[in-house]
Protein backbone atom coordinates (compact mmCIF):
# COMPACT_ATOMS: atom_id res chain seq x y z
CA UNK A 1 0.00 0.00 0.00
CA UNK A 2 1.52 3.22 -1.14
CA UNK A 3 0.93 6.40 0.78
CA UNK A 4 -0.51 8.63 -1.82
CA UNK A 5 -0.10 12.01 -0.32
CA UNK A 6 2.25 13.78 1.97
CA UNK A 7 0.81 15.42 5.03
CA UNK A 8 1.22 19.17 4.96
CA UNK A 9 0.88 21.16 8.15
CA UNK A 10 0.40 24.88 7.69
CA UNK A 11 -0.71 27.87 9.72
CA UNK A 12 -3.08 29.81 7.42
CA UNK A 13 -3.58 32.47 10.08
CA UNK A 14 -2.51 33.20 13.60
CA UNK A 15 -5.44 31.29 15.02
CA UNK A 16 -5.43 28.28 12.74
CA UNK A 17 -3.54 25.14 12.02
CA UNK A 18 -4.34 23.16 8.88
CA UNK A 19 -3.64 19.57 7.84
CA UNK A 20 -3.74 18.92 4.12
CA UNK A 21 -3.56 15.48 2.56
CA UNK A 22 -4.42 14.01 -0.84
CA UNK A 23 -6.12 10.63 -1.02
CA UNK A 24 -6.38 8.34 -4.01
CA UNK A 25 -10.15 7.96 -3.77
CA UNK A 26 -13.29 9.80 -4.83
CA UNK A 27 -14.66 12.42 -2.49
CA UNK A 28 -17.74 10.48 -1.41
CA UNK A 29 -15.60 7.65 -0.06
CA UNK A 30 -13.33 10.02 1.81
CA UNK A 31 -16.38 11.75 3.24
CA UNK A 32 -17.81 8.41 4.39
CA UNK A 33 -14.50 7.53 6.01
CA UNK A 34 -14.56 10.82 7.89
CA UNK A 35 -18.17 10.61 9.04
CA UNK A 36 -19.26 7.00 9.58
CA UNK A 37 -18.35 5.76 13.07
CA UNK A 38 -17.53 2.20 12.01
CA UNK A 39 -15.14 3.55 9.40
CA UNK A 40 -13.61 6.22 11.63
CA UNK A 41 -12.81 3.59 14.22
CA UNK A 42 -10.61 1.90 11.68
CA UNK A 43 -8.25 4.80 11.14
CA UNK A 44 -8.64 7.86 13.39
CA UNK A 45 -6.47 6.84 16.31
CA UNK A 46 -2.96 8.13 15.77
CA UNK A 47 0.10 6.18 16.88
CA UNK A 48 -0.04 2.45 17.57
CA UNK A 49 -1.39 1.52 20.96
CA UNK A 50 -4.43 3.74 20.67
CA UNK A 51 -7.92 2.82 19.55
CA UNK A 52 -11.00 4.89 18.94
CA UNK A 53 -13.19 3.06 21.42
CA UNK A 54 -16.22 5.34 21.35
CA UNK A 55 -17.36 7.17 18.26
CA UNK A 56 -20.85 8.63 18.31
CA UNK A 57 -22.02 10.91 15.55
CA UNK A 58 -25.29 12.73 15.10
CA UNK A 59 -24.41 14.43 11.88
CA UNK A 60 -26.82 17.27 11.44
CA UNK A 61 -26.57 20.93 12.27
CA UNK A 62 -26.86 21.17 16.04
CA UNK A 63 -26.18 17.43 16.46
CA UNK A 64 -23.41 16.27 18.76
CA UNK A 65 -20.49 13.93 18.35
CA UNK A 66 -18.21 12.28 20.83
CA UNK A 67 -14.92 10.42 20.42
CA UNK A 68 -13.08 8.57 23.17
CA UNK A 69 -9.69 6.99 22.57
CA UNK A 70 -8.08 4.31 24.71
CA UNK A 71 -4.45 3.38 24.93
CA UNK A 72 -3.30 -0.12 25.81
CA UNK A 73 -1.59 1.39 28.87
CA UNK A 74 -4.95 2.53 30.25
CA UNK A 75 -4.77 6.19 29.23
CA UNK A 76 -7.98 7.61 27.91
CA UNK A 77 -8.74 10.75 25.93
CA UNK A 78 -12.07 12.15 24.96
CA UNK A 79 -13.37 14.99 22.89
CA UNK A 80 -16.60 16.12 21.38
CA UNK A 81 -18.66 18.99 20.10
CA UNK A 82 -21.54 20.14 17.96
CA UNK A 83 -21.96 20.25 14.18
CA UNK A 84 -22.28 23.76 12.81
CA UNK A 85 -22.36 22.97 9.10
CA UNK A 86 -22.92 19.67 7.32
CA UNK A 87 -22.64 19.68 3.53
CA UNK A 88 -22.07 16.12 2.25
CA UNK A 89 -19.72 15.26 0.72
CA UNK A 90 -17.70 18.42 0.81
CA UNK A 91 -17.74 20.29 4.07
CA UNK A 92 -18.19 19.83 7.80
CA UNK A 93 -17.77 22.46 10.48
CA UNK A 94 -17.90 21.48 14.13
CA UNK A 95 -16.84 22.67 17.54
CA UNK A 96 -14.07 20.72 19.26
CA UNK A 97 -13.45 20.43 22.95
CA UNK A 98 -11.12 17.96 24.59
CA UNK A 99 -12.05 16.56 28.01
CA UNK A 100 -8.60 17.40 29.29
CA UNK A 101 -8.47 20.86 27.76
CA UNK A 102 -7.16 23.16 30.45
CA UNK A 103 -8.48 26.28 28.78
CA UNK A 104 -12.06 25.05 28.74
CA UNK A 105 -12.67 26.85 25.49
CA UNK A 106 -13.70 25.34 22.22
CA UNK A 107 -11.90 25.30 18.92
CA UNK A 108 -13.71 25.13 15.59
CA UNK A 109 -12.82 22.42 13.11
CA UNK A 110 -13.49 22.70 9.40
CA UNK A 111 -13.12 19.79 7.04
CA UNK A 112 -13.14 20.61 3.33
CA UNK A 113 -12.96 17.88 0.68
CA UNK A 114 -12.32 18.64 -2.98
CA UNK A 115 -12.07 16.10 -5.77
CA UNK A 116 -9.94 16.31 -8.88
CA UNK A 117 -9.26 13.47 -11.32
CA UNK A 118 -10.56 10.90 -8.89
CA UNK A 119 -8.30 12.10 -6.09
CA UNK A 120 -9.52 13.92 -3.04
CA UNK A 121 -7.79 16.66 -1.14
CA UNK A 122 -8.73 16.78 2.51
CA UNK A 123 -8.06 20.00 4.38
CA UNK A 124 -8.72 19.82 8.08
CA UNK A 125 -8.38 23.17 9.81
CA UNK A 126 -8.61 23.96 13.51
CA UNK A 127 -9.44 27.54 14.42
CA UNK A 128 -8.68 28.49 17.98
CA UNK A 129 -10.96 30.89 19.83
CA UNK A 130 -9.57 34.37 20.09
CA UNK A 131 -9.10 34.33 23.82
CA UNK A 132 -7.33 31.03 23.72
CA UNK A 133 -5.44 32.16 20.67
CA UNK A 134 -4.01 34.94 22.75
CA UNK A 135 -2.63 32.44 25.24
CA UNK A 136 -2.31 29.59 22.84
CA UNK A 137 0.56 28.02 21.11
CA UNK A 138 -0.06 29.25 17.62
CA UNK A 139 -0.38 32.92 18.28
CA UNK A 140 1.19 35.09 15.66
CA UNK A 141 1.87 38.78 15.85
CA UNK A 142 -0.80 40.26 13.63
CA UNK A 143 -0.33 43.39 15.71
CA UNK A 144 3.14 43.77 14.33
CA UNK A 145 1.63 43.93 10.88
CA UNK A 146 3.50 40.99 9.56
CA UNK A 147 2.54 39.16 6.46
CA UNK A 148 1.57 35.72 7.56
CA UNK A 149 1.47 33.37 4.65
CA UNK A 150 1.51 29.67 4.57
CA UNK A 151 4.35 28.57 6.68
CA UNK A 152 5.92 25.28 5.78
CA UNK A 153 7.50 24.64 9.09
CA UNK A 154 8.54 21.12 8.34
CA UNK A 155 10.61 22.21 5.37
CA UNK A 156 12.41 24.76 7.45
CA UNK A 157 12.88 22.51 10.44
CA UNK A 158 14.39 19.89 8.19
CA UNK A 159 17.35 22.21 7.67
CA UNK A 160 17.81 22.98 11.32
CA UNK A 161 19.49 20.92 14.01
CA UNK A 162 17.17 19.15 16.40
CA UNK A 163 18.33 20.56 19.70
CA UNK A 164 17.90 18.67 22.90
CA UNK A 165 18.91 19.37 26.40
Amino acid sequence: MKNFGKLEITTPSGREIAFTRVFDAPRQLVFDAWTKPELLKRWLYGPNGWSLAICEIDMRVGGRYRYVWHHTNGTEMGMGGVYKEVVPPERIVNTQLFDQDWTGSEAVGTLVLTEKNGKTTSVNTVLYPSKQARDGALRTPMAEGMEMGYMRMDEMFASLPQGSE
Partner: protein
Amino acid sequence: MELIGYTNNAAELDATFAALADPTRRAILARLARGEASVMELAEPFDMSQPAISKHLKVLERAGLISRGSEAQRRPRRLEARPLAEATEWLEQYREFWEASFGRLDSLLSELKKTGVKSAEQGAARKIARPRKRTPQPGIGKDSGKSGHAGHAGFRRRKK
Protein backbone atom coordinates in the same frame (compact mmCIF):
# COMPACT_ATOMS: atom_id res chain seq x y z
CA MET B 1 3.03 7.71 28.33
CA GLU B 2 4.80 10.95 28.70
CA LEU B 3 2.64 14.01 28.75
CA ILE B 4 3.66 17.49 27.90
CA GLY B 5 3.15 20.40 30.27
CA TYR B 6 1.63 22.69 27.71
CA THR B 7 0.75 25.58 29.99
CA ASN B 8 4.31 26.01 31.16
CA ASN B 9 5.69 26.98 27.84
CA ALA B 10 2.70 28.47 26.03
CA ALA B 11 4.15 31.97 26.20
CA GLU B 12 7.48 30.68 25.00
CA LEU B 13 5.85 28.93 22.08
CA ASP B 14 4.02 32.14 21.25
CA ALA B 15 7.28 34.01 21.00
CA THR B 16 8.83 31.22 18.95
CA PHE B 17 6.01 31.01 16.44
CA ALA B 18 5.78 34.79 16.23
CA ALA B 19 9.46 35.02 15.44
CA LEU B 20 9.14 32.24 12.86
CA ALA B 21 6.25 33.92 11.08
CA ASP B 22 8.58 35.90 8.84
CA PRO B 23 10.48 34.49 5.85
CA THR B 24 13.58 36.65 6.41
CA ARG B 25 13.87 35.46 9.98
CA ARG B 26 13.44 31.86 8.90
CA ALA B 27 16.19 32.35 6.34
CA ILE B 28 18.41 33.86 9.03
CA LEU B 29 17.82 30.80 11.22
CA ALA B 30 18.55 28.48 8.33
CA ARG B 31 21.83 30.34 7.78
CA LEU B 32 22.73 30.16 11.48
CA ALA B 33 21.99 26.45 11.48
CA ARG B 34 25.14 26.12 9.38
CA GLY B 35 27.22 28.01 11.93
CA GLU B 36 27.45 31.35 13.71
CA ALA B 37 27.71 34.57 11.71
CA SER B 38 28.12 38.30 12.24
CA VAL B 39 25.39 40.82 11.46
CA MET B 40 27.28 41.83 8.35
CA GLU B 41 27.55 38.25 7.15
CA LEU B 42 23.87 37.72 7.85
CA ALA B 43 22.85 40.87 5.96
CA GLU B 44 24.86 39.91 2.88
CA PRO B 45 22.48 37.49 1.13
CA PHE B 46 19.49 39.75 1.73
CA ASP B 47 18.70 42.92 -0.12
CA MET B 48 18.38 44.69 3.21
CA SER B 49 20.16 47.30 5.26
CA GLN B 50 22.05 46.27 8.36
CA PRO B 51 19.57 48.11 10.62
CA ALA B 52 16.71 46.17 9.00
CA ILE B 53 18.53 42.90 9.64
CA SER B 54 19.32 43.99 13.18
CA LYS B 55 15.61 44.49 13.79
CA HIS B 56 14.93 40.92 12.74
CA LEU B 57 17.78 39.70 14.89
CA LYS B 58 16.27 41.46 17.88
CA VAL B 59 12.98 39.62 17.40
CA LEU B 60 14.81 36.31 17.15
CA GLU B 61 16.85 37.17 20.20
CA ARG B 62 13.80 38.10 22.25
CA ALA B 63 12.27 34.75 21.34
CA GLY B 64 15.43 33.08 22.58
CA LEU B 65 16.05 31.59 19.17
CA ILE B 66 19.49 33.12 18.81
CA SER B 67 22.16 34.48 21.11
CA ARG B 68 25.23 36.67 20.75
CA GLY B 69 28.76 35.47 21.02
CA SER B 70 31.13 37.28 23.33
CA GLU B 71 33.73 38.07 20.70
CA ALA B 72 33.90 41.86 21.18
CA GLN B 73 34.09 43.17 17.64
CA ARG B 74 32.14 40.67 15.63
CA ARG B 75 29.45 39.69 18.12
CA PRO B 76 28.51 36.66 16.07
CA ARG B 77 24.95 35.41 16.34
CA ARG B 78 24.33 31.76 16.94
CA LEU B 79 21.30 29.51 16.87
CA GLU B 80 19.70 28.43 20.14
CA ALA B 81 18.14 25.09 19.40
CA ARG B 82 15.96 24.57 22.46
CA PRO B 83 12.93 26.84 21.75
CA LEU B 84 12.90 25.68 18.17
CA ALA B 85 12.99 22.09 19.30
CA GLU B 86 10.03 22.74 21.58
CA ALA B 87 8.02 24.30 18.78
CA THR B 88 8.93 21.39 16.55
CA GLU B 89 7.96 18.90 19.21
CA TRP B 90 4.61 20.58 19.62
CA LEU B 91 3.94 20.32 15.91
CA GLU B 92 5.40 16.84 15.87
CA GLN B 93 2.53 15.60 18.05
CA TYR B 94 0.04 16.72 15.44
CA ARG B 95 2.13 15.21 12.73
CA GLU B 96 2.42 11.85 14.47
CA PHE B 97 -1.27 11.64 15.07
CA TRP B 98 -2.33 12.57 11.57
CA GLU B 99 0.35 10.71 9.66
CA ALA B 100 -0.41 7.47 11.46
CA SER B 101 -4.14 7.97 11.01
CA PHE B 102 -4.00 9.04 7.37
CA GLY B 103 -1.72 6.12 6.53
CA ARG B 104 -4.46 3.79 7.74
CA LEU B 105 -7.08 5.83 5.91
CA ASP B 106 -5.19 5.20 2.65
CA SER B 107 -5.55 1.46 3.21
CA LEU B 108 -9.18 1.76 4.21
CA LEU B 109 -10.04 3.83 1.14
CA SER B 110 -8.41 1.35 -1.15
CA GLU B 111 -10.51 -1.37 0.49
CA LEU B 112 -13.65 0.75 0.17
CA LYS B 113 -13.01 1.23 -3.53
CA LYS B 114 -13.08 -2.54 -3.97
CA THR B 115 -15.74 -3.64 -1.54
CA GLY B 116 -17.94 -0.60 -1.00
CA VAL B 117 -18.79 1.25 2.16
CA LYS B 118 -21.55 -1.05 3.41
CA SER B 119 -19.50 -4.21 3.66
CA ALA B 120 -16.58 -2.37 5.24
CA GLU B 121 -18.89 -1.00 7.90
CA GLN B 122 -20.28 -4.45 8.61
CA GLY B 123 -16.80 -5.91 8.76
CA ALA B 124 -15.80 -3.30 11.28
CA ALA B 125 -18.94 -3.90 13.32
CA ARG B 126 -18.08 -7.59 13.55
CA LYS B 127 -14.61 -6.76 14.80
CA ILE B 128 -15.85 -4.25 17.34
CA ALA B 129 -18.54 -6.65 18.58
CA ARG B 130 -15.93 -8.72 20.37
CA PRO B 131 -16.23 -7.79 24.02
CA ARG B 132 -13.52 -5.61 25.51
CA LYS B 133 -12.34 -6.09 29.04
CA ARG B 134 -12.75 -2.48 29.93
CA THR B 135 -16.06 -0.68 29.97
CA PRO B 136 -15.38 2.78 28.68
CA GLN B 137 -16.91 5.61 30.60
CA PRO B 138 -16.89 9.05 29.08
CA GLY B 139 -15.16 11.55 31.28
CA ILE B 140 -13.20 9.02 33.27
CA GLY B 141 -9.95 10.42 32.00
CA LYS B 142 -10.60 13.97 33.08
CA ASP B 143 -7.98 14.04 35.74
CA SER B 144 -5.70 11.47 34.26
CA GLY B 145 -3.18 13.87 32.85
CA LYS B 146 -2.25 17.39 32.09
CA SER B 147 -2.18 16.86 28.39
CA GLY B 148 -4.91 17.31 25.88
CA HIS B 149 -4.70 20.44 23.86
CA ALA B 150 -7.23 20.43 21.05
CA GLY B 151 -4.85 18.72 18.72
CA HIS B 152 -4.32 15.29 20.11
CA ALA B 153 -1.35 16.37 22.16
CA GLY B 154 -1.90 13.42 24.44
CA PHE B 155 -1.31 10.96 21.67
CA ARG B 156 2.37 11.29 21.93
CA ARG B 157 4.40 8.21 21.82
CA ARG B 158 6.78 7.41 24.55
CA LYS B 159 10.14 9.00 24.02
CA LYS B 160 12.62 6.61 22.59
